[in-house]
């Protein structure tokens, strides 16, 4: 888990750097949300379960089999990008073989899709759970409420996973939610609502594991809200200085899930400074190679713009 968290972080930082250097046009960041994502994704079984992720879920898709190279091909919008061949912005993950359902940019649209997969699997007698994630801002969209209610009525094995990072671009949580917590909404849909510290990767893992069990046992959906903090601006085109203080961001960094987990591992004696250095060095090389490969990879032929509107 820690390894995937570090890889997620290094990729994120590299993409941000490449954007600032003018090499790639756009990035969304998951920095600060790795604890939520990795905790959740490791409670799922990539061979069995399906994910309908949102655009920050880099940690989730790495767990579901995407490689650093795949992420970089997408960042550079190259033909070989497995998500969309460079058609979509980075963060719009997709891979049928890896059980990652393609998503779009209007938020929350993926949530009913996750319910549909759970419904289809149940109709076919296949045991799985579907995971779908979204921010606290997205939890105000009709699609969230309609899908949660649908899953509640039909007791479908769906995990509604809110990655509450406290901001929907510039609008803070208290301007997004009429209630105290997204998880409070669960009762309206007949499912448990679980509030968990998104910076505590093991607590997230535990909460999602329980939800997986519920789903597999036919007990229906669960709504989990993992609260963390988006350390970077909303996207590479956003400047968060207009809506939050530097003090607040610096304070949040002290609870960074990555550091919390590393310190915990070291305290338990299963991780050392040397381990950390070796891992960083190894993963840095992975990210370097992925960057280099993606940079050199060919772009799509312009005429392919016309392909794949309908089946041939």
């Amino acid at each position: 888990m820690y390894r995937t968290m570090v890889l997620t972080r290094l990729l994120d930082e590299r993409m941000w750097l490449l954007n600032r250097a003018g090499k790639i046009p756009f990035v969304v960041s998951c920095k600060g949300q790795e604890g939520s994502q990795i905790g959740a994704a490791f409670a799922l079984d990539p061979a069995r379960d399906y994910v309908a992720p949102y655009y920050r879920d880099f940690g989730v898709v790495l767990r579901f089999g995407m490689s650093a190279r795949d992420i970089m091909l997408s960042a550079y919008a190259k033909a070989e990008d497995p998500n969309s061949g460079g058609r979509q912005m980075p963060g719009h993950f997709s891979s049928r073989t890896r059980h990652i359902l393609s998503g779009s940019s209007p938020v929350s649209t993926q949530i009913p899709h996750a319910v549909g997969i759970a419904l289809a699997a149940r109709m076919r007698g296949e045991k799985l759970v579907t995971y779908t994630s979204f921010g606290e801002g997205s939890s105000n969209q009709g699609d969230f409420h309609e899908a949660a209610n649908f899953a509640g009525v039909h007791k479908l094995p769906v995990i509604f996973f809110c990655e509450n990072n406290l901001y929907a671009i510039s609008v803070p949580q208290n301007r997004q939610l009429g209630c105290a917590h997204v998880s409070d909404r669960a009762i309206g849909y007949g499912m448990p609502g679980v509030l968990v510290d998104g910076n505590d990767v093991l607590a997230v893992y535990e909460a999602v594991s329980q939800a997986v069990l519920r789903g597999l046992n036919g007990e229906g959906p669960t709504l989990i809200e993992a609260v963390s903090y988006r350390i970077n601006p909303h996207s590479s085109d956003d400047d968060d200085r207009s809506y939050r203080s530097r003090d607040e961001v610096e304070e949040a960094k002290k609870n960074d899930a990555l550091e919390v987990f590393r310190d915990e591992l070291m305290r338990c004696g299963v991780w050392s400074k040397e381990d950390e250095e070796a891992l960083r060095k190894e993963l840095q090389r992975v990210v370097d190679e992925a960057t280099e490969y993606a940079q050199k990879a060919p772009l799509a032929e312009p005429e392919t713009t016309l392909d794949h509107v309908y089946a041939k």
Partner: protein
Amino acid sequence: MAVKLYIDAIREAMQEEMRQNPNVFVLGEDVGLRGGVFRVTQGMIEEFGPERVMDTPLAESAIVGVAIGAAAYGMRPIAEIQFADFIMPAVNQIISEAAKLRYRTQGDWHCPLVIRAPYGGGVHGALYHSQSVEALFYHVPGLKIVTPATAADAKGLLRAALRDPDPVLYFEHKGMYRAIRDDVPEGDFTVPIGKARVAREGDDLTVITYGLMVHHTLTAAERLAADGISTHVIDLRSILPLDREAILEAARRTGKVLIVHEDNKTGGIGAEVSALIAEEALFDLDAPIARLCGPDVPAMPFSAPLEAFYMLNSTKIEDAMRKLAAF
């Protein structure tokens, strides 16, 4: 061949496909126990059970969104929207998701989904139970749109839609459910999406139309025939894709074209058909292209005289045809 009602042909298409293909299922509001407010799915829950004829919560975006997820997973959902007017909350799911899933994943995922919706007016349905919404979706590559005018086409097109690998909007005119009956072939037949039908052969003028207006046009054509005016009538059947060859051939055949639809005139399907003919067959024409359509008001009013004013009928179509024939 057996004479069947339009509504029965739709139901039979669903039943037969569901018997053949375990992946096909219906979901929507009231489709189960009630058998649909129009009784289109009547009796189906008894045969297929509540899982395959699924009553859903009243939430159109979820009906379509859940169907998209199921379709992506490999099922063949038929999502019923109770009235086409109520498709609006699901428009984002249809346009942003269903239409683009194949494109944005380069064919890795696709969405074999059928959305059925009763549309059209003349049944005292007022503003929100009378609309024609096909033009809203006509602008969206990735979707297919069909509007059968006969029982045979209703069955054949629905079967074709249920075997199509891409999302198909299937608009059934509610005014035709029990008013239209015709010969429906026996056995496993389909009507290909994208092919128009010559509803009547003629040499003096061409009318291009679809849906309920096909029948009003045929009635008007009979009256013109009594006066020696011969009308060629094209039933488009498919709105998206349009049958370009059939449209151009029919326009060239008579040199005079009238396009008739119940939907508003501005930005309607007629505008596209007209532009196509103007681009490709202008010098084969003997008269300006004419359009007869619903008026450009927001929707159809409830009261009888207002509704009658809005709605096209065979007399209005006959007048437009005579005017064009005399040009």
